[in-house]
């Protein structure tokens, strides 16, 4: 039934009516592009957020004093290490440096691979510094005077590492005015996941003014932020779907009017109803699949190679121009998009063509 010649013929027929199909092809591609771009961006951000919560940060302990953050000390580490089920406790240093010239708080993160006189900055911070003519080095203002550090290198930043300066822990402590025995937070490693929640509660029992957050709580907090943003995407999806249905209607009406004649002629030269349906099916699946794959590919290039120039600002707001996205592809969601676009598109074409095909030919030819 589906001989090569038949397929060849249907493609030729499709190319003959290029202009008619061209419009729907473009719209379809654009819709798939928008949908999958939104999906790629959101997946990538989610991936970055959740993957940075490494396996060794199973419980994060912070300390408060009269409701404000307060450093922890060696004693906290000693006592938490005694608990059964805790395998390691690491004191971490991080905080915020107030860059008052542009009234901006910059995240300082300790990285001990650096030497005492150098820092690594993220791309957007580098641009900020250049505005103030800090090209090769930067002066931190502390209560004990200025600390001058060389900018060793610049890193591309994802959602987490934008607005960040890395320095080694001594330098970080100096800038944040902490002493050697103090830590901003503790990262507790627990081998058995079942004990994590219990140990977090236990730590809070031992030190009533600490806050111990388990990894799963952190993840759900991040997801919460994300779902709030999800509302904006939801509107995008709805708009895209509406446009899609307008496209479908357009397709259907074109089948019913202009292609009636074509179908009738094909019937009269001996095509069966089945042939008509398969002809239409071949033509439209070429359009649908072609535009689907082109749309997905284009959005992949747009998001992961050009880093989504305009759409990014919708998602993340200002000060995020330099974020790069980690390529993540969620095939399940792509398949869903496929189901919701390609399948209805084909169905909406085939049913009207079948309806036309079973009508009386002489009626149409009049």
């Amino acid at each position, binding site marked *: 039934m589906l001989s090569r010649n038949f397929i060849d013929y249907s493609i030729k027929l499709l190319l003959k009516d290029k202009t008619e199909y061209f419009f729907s092809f473009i719209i379809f591609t654009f819709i798939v592009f928008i949908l999958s771009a939104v999906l790629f961006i959101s997946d990538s951000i989610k991936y970055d957020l959740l993957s940075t919560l490494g396996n060794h940060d199973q419980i994060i302990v912070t300390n408060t004093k009269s409701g404000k953050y307060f450093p922890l000390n060696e004693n906290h580490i000693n006592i938490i290490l*005694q608990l*059964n089920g805790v395998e*390691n406790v690491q004191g971490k240093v991080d905080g915020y440096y*107030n860059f008052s010239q542009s009234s901006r708080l910059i995240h300082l993160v300790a990285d001990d691979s650096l030497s005492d006189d150098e820092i690594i900055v993220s791309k957007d911070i580098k641009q900020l510094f250049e505005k103030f003519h800090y090209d090769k080095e930067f002066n931190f203002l502390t209560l004990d005077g200025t600390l001058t550090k060389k900018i060793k290198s610049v890193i591309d930043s994802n959602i987490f590492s934008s607005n960040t300066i890395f320095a080694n822990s*001594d330098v970080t402590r100096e800038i944040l005015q902490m*002493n050697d025995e*103090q830590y901003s937070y503790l990262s507790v490693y627990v081998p*058995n996941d079942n004990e994590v929640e219990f140990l977090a509660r236990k730590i809070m029992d031992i030190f009533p003014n600490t806050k111990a957050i388990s990894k799963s709580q952190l993840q759900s907090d991040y997801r919460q932020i994300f779902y709030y943003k999800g509302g904006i995407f939801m509107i995008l999806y709805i708009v895209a779907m509406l446009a899609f249905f307008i496209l479908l209607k357009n397709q259907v009406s074109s089948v019913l009017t202009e292609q009636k004649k074509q179908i009738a002629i094909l019937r009269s030269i001996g095509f069966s109803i089945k042939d008509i349906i398969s002809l239409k099916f071949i033509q439209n699946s070429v359009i649908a699949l072609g535009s689907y794959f082109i749309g997905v590919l284009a959005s992949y290039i747009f998001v992961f190679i050009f880093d989504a120039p305009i759409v990014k600002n919708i998602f993340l707001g200002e000060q995020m121009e330099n974020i790069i996205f980690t390529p993540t592809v969620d095939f399940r969601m792509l398949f869903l998009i496929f189901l919701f676009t390609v399948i209805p598109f084909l169905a909406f074409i085939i049913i009207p063509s079948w309806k036309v095909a079973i009508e009386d030919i002489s009626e149409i030819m009049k």
Partner: protein
Amino acid sequence: MKKYLLLLTMFSCLIFAKSFQFINKDKGTFINEGSSKYYCSSCAMSLPKHYKTNYIYKNRQYCSIHCLYEQTKGKFDSEIKVVDTNSLKFIDAKKAFFVIGSNKPATMSFHSKYAFKQKKDAMDFISKNGGNLVRFKDLIVVVRNDFSKDLSMLDTKKKKKVYKVGKKLYESNCNKISIENIKTITDLKTKLKEVCKVNKDKQLQSMTVYLWDTKKLDKTIRKIESIYVPKDAKCVICGMFVHKYPKWATMLEYKQKHYYFDGPKDMLKFVFEKGKSNIGEIYVSDYFTTKKIDGRKAFYVIGSDVYGPMGKELVAFESDQAAYNFKNDHFGKKVMFFSEITDEVLEYLK
């Protein structure tokens, strides 16, 4: 709002760069001989870093009363000197006033202990930082009571953290040294300071402790080796795939074949079916560390609120202390030996 909070956070941090006990080397008195001038005679920790808790006994300087007690086993037959917290001079400890349990940091102990020459100074210190005033006789009693607890605290810390850190640092920053002809821990630290590319005392100390303890005191580094479960291993009692629950995995040897189970309960059913005498090696997973441990030497807790993949379980532990702690934390009914587990126990766990 968030920004203001962060600002406040930054300024609410205490503003001094060094810890309370620290002084500069030129401000204190250091009497140790030669290379170990600035290191504690017992544990090699930095003396200026913990200067305010320093002691001198028989011409040797120690970083804390804990170290001194460890060296002398609590028998003092000559003069002890201690640093006066305010003047930083050494004074006679027998006449000093001590403040125990203030909120200033402690050295090698849970409770901080600071000495004062004048009672007034001690009372001022208490009004600022809390704590209790005692004399030397009572101080020794407190140290004696704390000693084993502090020792186990330090031991746990070393096992879980310091050795690992020290090993990593030693292997990446040092030229290897032979340790046979090094007599004392302070000599070792001095030697390491020459051959290693680290400049922080804390890093140096962790390397010293690692080398000294593992090479001289024959302590072992804590290694967590879990039971390896093949992907296709099924529990012969309930038919579940074992590798999905690695934290509950158990293994035994029967007629030269390895059998895997998803919990001690199912394993014991198998053991009772085949008869205890026919079974070879038995391994279970420690609940806290997921370590592979000998099932016959393990301690089992029944009746707790922790459930395994097959419901009520016997929760296995390597040490009795861990087992009793778990029992208290998770409302367990009883801690049992392997030999105590009978058919009735399994019936109870159904």
